[in-house]
């Protein structure tokens, strides 16, 4: 797992985003056991309390659940994971749209642009 962190944004939000993406993409499969807070904190080079905070947030979002003795697991709720995936994709789309708008693209032009570029790619 790659932990690229910016120091100018709260670390716990970034950890949460990274883990959320891992869950949404299936890199952390549904029902799989999560590594411990300490292991992940050591991997990421962050404070264990910060990792704990990211875990608590994922738990609140029902993306992971804690079993008192066995540890933490990724949710098996496929619908919940699909929603998470959708949210991340929407956020990316929003970023893209903003950037394109800055360049002067209108909504329809953006769609046309994406379609034509992708068709070119497929043809090429």
């Amino acid at each position, binding site marked *: 797992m790659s932990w690229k962190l910016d*120091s100018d944004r709260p670390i716990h939000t970034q950890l949460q985003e990274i883990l959320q993406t891992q869950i949404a993409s299936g890199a952390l499969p549904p029902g799989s056991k999560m590594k411990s807070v*300490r292991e992940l904190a050591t991997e990421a080079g*962050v404070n264990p*309390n910060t990792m704990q905070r990211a875990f608590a947030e994922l738990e609140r979002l029902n993306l992971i659940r804690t079993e008192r003795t066995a540890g933490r697991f990724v949710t098996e709720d496929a619908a919940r994971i699909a929603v998470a995936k959708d949210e991340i994709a929407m956020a990316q789309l929003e970023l893209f749209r903003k950037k394109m708008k800055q360049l002067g693209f209108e909504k329809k032009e953006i769609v046309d642009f994406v379609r034509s570029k992708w068709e070119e790619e497929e043809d090429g």
Partner: protein
Amino acid sequence: MAELLRTEHLVKVYDNMSMPALDDITLTIPTGRIVGLLGPNGSGKTTLIKLINGLLQPTSGSVLIEGNRPGPVSKAVVSYLPDRFCLPGDRTAEELMQFYADFYADFDRERAETMLGSLQIERTARIKGLSKGTKEKLQLIMAMSRRARLYVLDEPIAGVDPAARDYILKTIISNYQPDASILLSTHLISDVENILDDVIFIRNGRILLCSSVEKIREEQGKSLDAYFREVFAC
């Protein structure tokens, strides 16, 4: 969270100095925190650390570690890394481990051996023959190998290379116990800022700011390193 360290209205005035080195420092450190002590040169960081470790006596005010003044009881639970090298040069790392095991009931030999191995430090060579960086690593390994309640580290990574720095920081994270805390002073803010819970800024012997590091990122939208440069701009 229990209270591990408390200082109250701590003042230190050195002889022949008109300005106090520390002026009215009141702070507490609970268990389970990694706290950075940051400030420019001469701001009082080392003075505060020496007072916590009983190497200096306060002019007024008090330092309490789990309710005890600095002394044999506090030293049994505080692991201190001084800002200068102070290991016996004629001994070897092997002998040093024996020495630590005799002196400190909380010394964990296995932990020390693991770290010596990872950083490839010669255990049977005389310490004075080791390079400057290796000596610093050795001294830090000894400090981190105690299962202490409070680690007080004065510039722990200043003299070691970046790869060893990463290893040392990871060691700090993986050995970290929820009932212990770490107070560390450093100038290398960007290297340590992701592992800190809290930060104390001091200037001219006074506390300028005590805050959670995440709160600074949230409120200032910048890294601790950038914020430090802004606050202490010359």
